[in-house]
């Protein structure tokens, strides 16, 4: 306790240098917490959006379906069993039929995935109601990324070419009924959504689907044509990407923390050199060497406690502000293929904050201890003369 009291006195007494170190250290605190909370916020938002727009409570995949291999699409479709059909009625299942096709915006061919989905589904946030089948036009919806890439707008007509059941090419004009804003590139990039029944007619795959999205009221069915893929599987890629982004950001704050720790280390080395007389005096007054080592270690380590306090003073208002307004994300990063909103609401985990504080306190104490060990080998009479090099 005494050591803590003395350490803080000495530290505050050292003035400007202390506060500079504390400021740099507090910056690393705030940045570590800021960055991680942003990543956690992103992770959460990306998961929520992916669930709401694409995967629901999981998907039933036709056994041959492999999203990484478009050539499997030719075979990856199967009839929706009667048992499943009743669940489709109640919106517990939403069938999606997927096939390859091309569109010709401005006369230039672009390969796409053509996806059929019931226009009356409510399970996913996709604005499928815009696909309403009234009228003789074939209505389609596309995401904002696709719209940007193809320069298609609402109301535009575009030529669609696909292979029918017999493998022969067929073509017709479709109308873009809606361009939807979304944060989930995997339902957007290179994709055109049509009414399921239309696509089934076009391909001759009546009552068939490639996958079915499940809702929370879905009752598991046992059918060898379909395998259930849960969140853990469907969100795995997302998690991997976010983890790797977190990892590469760690380099940044390890660097920042490194600078702060180096500053403390330097201060310690300098202070032990400059304060030899003081060290000699402590020993003359009856402190043991290990008590003096402890005092200097705590003094250096206490930088981190001050930094936590200082970081809290400007960090807490900043974090609360960001929680309220969100962190704006540049448009470019939203096209990176990972679900990312234009604003991320940071998520502050108590364990993140505590472990960050613990990490910084331990690191600061260690870099303070290393130079302080030298005191234990000091000759007190030399220290009192202040002559040690």
């Amino acid at each position, binding site marked *: 306790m005494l050591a803590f009291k003395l350490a803080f006195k000495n530290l505050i007494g050292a003035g400007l240098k202390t506060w500079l170190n504390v400021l740099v250290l507090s910056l690393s605190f705030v940045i570590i917490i800021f960055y991680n909370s942003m990543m956690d916020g992103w992770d959460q938002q990306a998961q929520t959006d992916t669930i709401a727009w694409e995967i629901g409570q999981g998907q039933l995949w036709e056994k041959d379906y492999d999203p990484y291999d478009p050539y499997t699409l030719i075979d990856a479709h199967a009839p929706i069993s009667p048992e499943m059909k009743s669940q489709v009625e109640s919106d517990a299942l939403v069938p999606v039929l997927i096939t390859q096709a091309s569109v010709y915006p401005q006369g230039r061919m672009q390969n796409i995935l053509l996806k059929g989905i019931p226009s009356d589904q409510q399970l996913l946030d996709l604005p499928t109601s815009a696909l309403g089948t009234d009228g003789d036009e074939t209505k389609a919806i596309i995401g904002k990324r696709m719209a940007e890439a193809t320069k298609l707008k609402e109301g535009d007509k575009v030529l669609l070419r696909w292979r029918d059941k017999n493998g022969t090419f067929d073509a017709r004009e479709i109308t873009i009924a809606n361009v939807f804003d979304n944060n989930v590139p995997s339902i957007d990039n290179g994709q055109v959504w049509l009414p399921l029944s239309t696509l089934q007619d076009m391909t001759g795959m009546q009552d068939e689907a490639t996958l079915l999205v499940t809702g929370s009221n879905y009752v598991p069915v046992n059918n060898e044509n379909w395998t259930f893929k849960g969140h853990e599987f469907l969100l795995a890629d997302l998690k991997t990407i976010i983890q790797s982004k977190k990892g590469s950001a760690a380099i940044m704050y390890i660097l920042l923390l490194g600078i702060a720790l180096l500053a403390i280390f330097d201060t310690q080395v300098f202070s032990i050199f400059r304060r030899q007389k003081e060290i000699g*005096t402590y020993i003359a007054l009856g402190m043991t060497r290990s008590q003096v080592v402890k005092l200097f270690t705590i003094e250096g380590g206490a930088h981190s406690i001050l930094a936590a306090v200082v970081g809290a003073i400007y960090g807490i208002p900043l974090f609360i502000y960001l929680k309220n307004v969100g962190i704006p994300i540049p448009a470019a990063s939203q096209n990176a293929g990972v679900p990312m909103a234009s604003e991320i609401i940071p998520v502050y985990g108590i364990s993140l904050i505590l472990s960050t504080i613990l990490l910084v306190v331990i690191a600061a104490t260690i870099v303070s201890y290393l130079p302080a060990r030298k005191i234990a080998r000091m000759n007190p009479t030399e220290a009192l003369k202040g002559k040690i090099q």
Partner: protein
Amino acid sequence: MNTASIISIKNMTKRFPVGKGEFTALENINLEFGEGEFAGLVGPSGSGKTTLLNIIGSLDSPTEGTATVMGKNIAQLSHKESALLRNLHIGFIFQSYNLLPVYTVFENVEFALLLQNHTASERRKAVMDALEWVGLTDKVKSKPAMLSGGEGQRVAIARAMVKRPKILLADEPSANLDAKNSHQILKTMKQLNKELKTTFIFSTHDEKVMQYLDRTISLADGKVVKDELTVAANAG
């Protein structure tokens, strides 16, 4: 000396390694100090005064022979034991005062007591008593940088005396003081010596200090060349 011996130095030699050889700073010293002595080590620069005080203060140890302080053989003490000996029984006063700059006068004086088990009110009383002895009760809250040289040295005396040590070692305590301050400080120390029966051992070149000594030990080239009782001026 009719009082009990509290410092006993027998056939003591101190050598320092210098380059490849050794330098003999103290050679075959034999000295006894009793309770309540007011003694001084005098001698030219380099004669070994500081070295001798450091050994008595258990900051250093003899190369040969023995130094026994308060019944403890200095050479055989562990770091911890010698720290305890200093903390309980030995006060130091340095030429440059060595006050701790970030602490107030009160805290500087209190420091030695913090290492022992005293309650806050015991400490407060002891610190105020010590500051009373040196006449600085009005500077309790000052920082060392705000004090004059004489005041700084008086704080150093209060810090050394606050724990009522058996032995007080003062290495050139008046070297940075003018005549008036020197006399004042010596009078204070002499008075404390009488009241508390503390053994004072000085090292000094200073004629003004010598006047106050009851015993003057002359060192030259690391040897005791004279050890005599002196009639102190201002003895009353």
